[in-house]
């Protein structure tokens, strides 16, 4: 019986209350922040940051809490974007409804994909996720009905919340993504203290012991995958309305998959604030280096960007939230010999 389970039960009411308080404070700040910033470009960055926070938190459900490292999450993002956009452009379904469908389709695909893939371990699983995302990307690129390489233009039919279109206004998108990020934060908060959360931590830290407790390993992983994909899909459909033009290259590419999980890694995988902190650092960095330094064409923005990523990885590999110690992670099971492989680090 893993030694941590009894200790883990005592999450500390104080810690939970601190987390809830910090959540409220941050939310309050974020609610009023854009009102004080008029610059469109900055608002753009804020929106992207919130989007990647949301996406990374969704990824964190599967990767951070449940330990299944997916490197192909752009698949669900793209599916979400395409489902709601196709429903809107071909069938006139308003995106506000379409996004729910998008989430469900993404979740369904996650179940279909995960069912054979979860039997693969570690690296094999990760590469399988990359490969599956690539396959769907190539299929979409060559499929005329969804626009293929030409992509789909979301025609502007007038401003409205129902069709989630605005001529140049950014604020509605900001609040939509903030809402999504907040919902996911709440979901993570709930997970940390829930039955599912304990199961998943058990699964991640010691699958054999967890199995011996009768935890339905497989079922819990599937739920995590579906939840993660659901929210990622919704994020995708929001983004499609935000940019008003989608094509496989922007919605399903491999780089996007990495960008979805990087904030969580940067901030601290499997932590409550990790994805948010990571996104807040990574996304403005990405955008600003390209916009203000990339204009020279000499590659210096790439050099700077690469160095900064490596710097964080070498100086604070556990994640930036370690800096704040706002929320300590539940220590993994202080497991002695964990079996024949003897590996002391999870890969």
């Amino acid at each position, binding site marked *: 019986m893993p030694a941590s389970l009894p200790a883990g039960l005592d999450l500390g009411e104080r810690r939970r209350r601190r987390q809830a308080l910090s959540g409220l404070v941050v939310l309050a700040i974020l609610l009023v922040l854009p009102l004080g910033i008029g610059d469109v470009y900055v608002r753009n960055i804020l929106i992207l940051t919130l989007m990647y926070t949301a996406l990374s938190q969704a990824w964190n459900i599967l990767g951070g809490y449940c330990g299944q490292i997916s490197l192909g999450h752009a698949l669900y993002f793209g599916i979400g974007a395409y489902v709601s956009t196709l429903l809107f452009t071909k069938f006139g379904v308003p995106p506000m409804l379409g996004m729910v469908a998008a989430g469900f389709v993404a979740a369904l695909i996650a179940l279909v994909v995960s069912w054979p893939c979860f039997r693969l371990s*570690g*690296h*094999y699983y990760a590469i399988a996720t990359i490969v599956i995302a690539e*396959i769907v990307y190539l299929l979409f690129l060559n499929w005329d009905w969804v626009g293929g390489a030409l992509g789909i233009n979301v025609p502007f039919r007038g401003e409205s919340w129902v069709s989630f279109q605005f001529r140049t206004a950014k604020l509605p998108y900001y609040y939509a993504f903030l809402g999504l990020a907040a919902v996911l934060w709440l979901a993570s908060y709930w997970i940390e203290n829930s039955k599912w959360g304990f199961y998943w931590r058990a699964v991640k830290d010691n699958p054999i012991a967890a199995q011996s407790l009768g935890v339905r390993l497989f079922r819990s992983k599937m739920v995590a995958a579906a939840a993660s994909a659901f929210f990622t899909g919704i994020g995708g459909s929001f983004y499609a309305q935000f940019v008003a033009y989608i094509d496989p290259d922007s919605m399903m590419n491999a780089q996007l998959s990495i960008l979805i999980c990087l904030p969580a890694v940067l901030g601290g995988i499997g932590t409550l604030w990790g994805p948010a902190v990571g996104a807040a650092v990574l996304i403005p960095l990405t955008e600003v280096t390209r916009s203000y330094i990339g204009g020279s064409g000499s590659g210096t923005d790439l050099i*700077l960007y*690469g160095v900064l990523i490596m710097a964080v990885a070498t100086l604070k590999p556990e994640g930036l939230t370690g800096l704040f110690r706002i929320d300590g992670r539940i220590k*993994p099971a202080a497991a002695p010999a964990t079996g024949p492989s003897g590996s*002391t680090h*999870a890969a």
Partner: protein
Amino acid sequence: MTAETLAQVVVSGLLTGMIYALIAAGLSLIFGLMDVVNFAHGEFLMTAMYATFVLYITLSIDPLFLLPMVAVFLFAIGVVVYRVLIVRALSVKVNSGMVQIFATFGLGIFLRGIAQFVFSPDFKSLRGTMLSDKTVSVLGVFMPLPQLAASLVCVVAFIGLWLLTTKTHFGRALEATREDSEAVALIGVDRHFIFAMGWGIGAATVGVAGVMLSTFYYISPGVGVTFALIAYVVVALGGFGSLPGALVAGLAIGLVEALTTLLIPPSLKQVGVFGLYLLVLFVRPRGLFGNL
């Protein structure tokens, strides 16, 4: 579709597969055997190609004779990367794999930026080397000399690596260190030295691949991106920890990729390759010959 077309496609697919295997060989050592992720593998390849380019232009020595120099250069890079970057990532107790991905992802971007800064983004090619632009036709099937040479080098490289990892002290130390680095410390093996050597050798191997590739492929900062994913799939398909597996997987992927173009539009040929990967893994979850 004629027999000639089929024969050509099969032969070309196998030759391409050898290239894939050669590129993946170094990764099979680093990723497959040492269990360390390297998302900058493609950029190591690119670095080797640029190194070949510079040496060829300045020294006018044919790339084939530049192999040792470039291999040593990449060996040094591998060791440096390990000591500066990877060591930190490995020190993380949990999710070290993700941190490795992150760190090497940054490294890849950095190397691409340096390449663009130094060489400009324009495509460069090696002209007039011993083997460039020469092709030989056997029974109507064309086989370009650079690719043939690369295939030969590939076989040699794999034999060399296999001997290294199975028959030498070092190879055994490498595997032992991966299994349990604390235990090996007890018998006086410095894990960092072993792993650094492993990284050096792995990088040198992809350096060799870069030299051979530059005799027939264009060089640009983004050239690594094109080959990186295939290298990963090769290693995973062959099975982690199996060098012969990577060779077989490379050939299989090259062949399947080529044959797929005869059946479906060529823009979808990678779907055939990836489909193969998933199919194999469904039946053998640890790849063709994986033992980890």
